[in-house]
């Protein structure tokens, strides 16, 4: 009650200056990354309040899941964050696998080869996701060229995914207990060698390109004027809103689940976690739009590093699927989180011992990041709203689920 009274008094206070205008931005707006509607309360060009209205892409993922068996839910997780669908598959499978491990009568472990394939493919997917984020952010701000370059390179990644799982966007590749065998790849075969060589040639091509992108967009003075010092999110605010992933690291919090709470086999790889810093000589402030964007650019390099380590080691022999006849987890509940490209992706599953879950809840990193928008945008210009939405990198499929 107190807060409403405060805002009301504020409005009355401001009223003598100018009339408030309400502008609807979206849902069909190219810069809202999907179908986000923003209700902008404007005072001239100053944003007094930007209220996000969500739900235009709601497809009942959680309710659907209650009527489907566990393997059937995986294609639905593809449709959550469709830009990084491999990571969404993995997040769900990790949760179900943890639930299966709770059953002590059955011996269950994900094969080594499957773990390596998962890390390999998910890190490539992270690059693809950050490339899209980088390209569309440039386009939002007004630079069209980086978008084309990003999609050119993303296309090569999509071809790699297509070869291993048969689809370009909704992969359904990572399964409970391993990875899909829909396109068989025998250990040590010529197919595997060709595939790994192809990834290697992509990395050789892609690594210098990141510097090129930095020349093209990151250091561009028009771009940095639009993003540096805009919408500063301090570390406390990022934590209190539950912002995770690059948004949190952009505020200077050194936190990455892959390193701090390693799941799967991430503890075997050597990689850095890029964290944003104050760069006074450039004009970048810790926690501004540019810092969040820069963390993503640096993360691509780290992903390349992880993939290179896998290529140097080679994929281990063995099966890619655990010996799992039916997915029937024991009675219980689990919350398990993993580091998706947009932040911490969590799945909460309640099982009653039947092949179908009683409840599935997805914790979406984009939803948490979007909730900070209202506070971030207060007092900024309309044009800065575009810069904020691009920098928190939301995918509406995941916000609405």
């Amino acid at each position, binding site marked *: 009650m107190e807060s409403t009274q405060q805002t009301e008094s504020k409005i009355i206070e401001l009223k003598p200056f100018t009339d408030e205008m309400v502008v609807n931005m979206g849902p069909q707006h190219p810069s809202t990354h999907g179908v986000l509607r923003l209700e902008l309360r404007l005072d001239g060009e100053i944003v007094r309040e930007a209220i996000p209205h969500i739900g235009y892409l709601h497809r009942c993922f959680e309710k659907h899941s209650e009527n*489907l068996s566990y*393997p*059937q*839910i*995986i*294609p*639905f997780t*593809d449709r959550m964050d469709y830009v990084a669908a491999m990571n969404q598959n993995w997040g769900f499978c990790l949760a179900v696998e943890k639930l299966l491990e709770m059953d002590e009568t059955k011996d269950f472990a994900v094969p080594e080869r499957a773990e390596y394939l998962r890390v390999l493919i998910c890190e490539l997917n992270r690059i693809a996701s950050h490339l899209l984020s980088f390209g569309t952010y440039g386009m939002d701000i007004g630079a069209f*060229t980086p978008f084309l370059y990003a999609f*050119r390179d993303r*296309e090569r990644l999509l*071809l790699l995914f*297509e*070869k291993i799982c*048969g*689809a370009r966007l*909704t992969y*359904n590749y990572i399964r409970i207990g391993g990875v*899909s*065998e*829909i*396109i068989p790849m025998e250990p040590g075969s010529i197919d595997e060698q060709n595939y790994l060589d192809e990834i290697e040639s992509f990395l050789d091509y892609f690594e210098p390109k990141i510097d*090129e992108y930095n*020349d*093209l*967009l990151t*250091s*561009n*003075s*028009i771009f940095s004027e639009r993003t540096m010092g805009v919408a500063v999110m301090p570390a406390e605010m990022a934590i209190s809103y539950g912002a995770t992933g690059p948004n949190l690291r952009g505020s200077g919090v050194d936190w990455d689940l892959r390193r701090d709470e390693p799941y799967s086999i991430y503890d075997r790889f050597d990689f850095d976690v890029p964290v944003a810093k104050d760069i006074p000589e450039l004009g970048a402030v810790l926690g501004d739009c540019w810092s969040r964007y820069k963390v993503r650019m640096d993360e691509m390099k780290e992903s390349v590093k992880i993939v290179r380590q896998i290529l140097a080691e080679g994929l281990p022999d063995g099966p890619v699927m655990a010996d799992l006849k039916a997915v029937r987890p024991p009675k219980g509940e689990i919350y398990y989180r993993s580091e998706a490209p947009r932040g911490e992706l969590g799945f909460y599953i309640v099982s009653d011992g039947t092949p179908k879950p009683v409840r599935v809840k997805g914790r979406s990193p984009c939803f948490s990041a979007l909730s900070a928008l209202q506070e971030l945008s207060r007092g900024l210009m309309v044009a800065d709203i575009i810069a904020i939405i691009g920098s928190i990198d939301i995918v509406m499929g995941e916000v609405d689920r």
Partner: protein
Amino acid sequence: MDRYIRNIYKGVYTVLVGMRITIRQFFEPNVTHQYPYEHDFEKKRNVREIPKGYRGQLYNRIEDCIGCKKCELICPVDCITITGDKLPKGEQLWDSMNVIHLKDGREIIGLIEGEDKKLNLDEEMTVTNITSRQGPQEVVDRLEQSGDESRTQTISGSEVSRVVTRNPVVFYLDQFDIDMSLCMYCGLCTEVCPTECLTMIDTLEGIEYSKFDRTDLIFNFDKQEMYGKDEAETEEAAD
């Protein structure tokens, strides 16, 4: 004033840095192609191939289908509808046989010799009783077209792509419909199929099949003539 000029210099300089990257692209081959007009998926260097195993349109080879309804069960969006009936007791439509799919696309129907039913694709296999009497008419026609007249043939394992063992059918399908407008291309149904008769077409035809009418996207795979029914009879039943 000094800052103003420095800003202009900085702006122009950083744009030129970007321009240098763009200029380089002038001397490189095109990345894009004119998609609906350029269909040559293999000849052009910059045009991609559709990889093997791509998840395209669903296709059911009904001759091999045993009507187990596993695909109908696993489908998350219920796009497959199967109805069927059991044959009267004692009747059967054909004896058990092997359908041997060769790598060149031919199919041979017969019985593989040997007591061991386990198939070893590395060795030669002798197929006896290659028949045009048994089996669905469709397959028989295809067999005759391929010019295979001998009843016994030895096939080296390297030629064979896969072998399907068909047991006598006691269950026949009245309806096998797939609504491709509902399909989410997850490929779960093709994985559970025990006879590998339900596949996803991984060629251009499996990707470009758009229709003007939504009802045209419901594909019927059942073939009543396969069960030896007359066409007139089928038509009567349809009326």
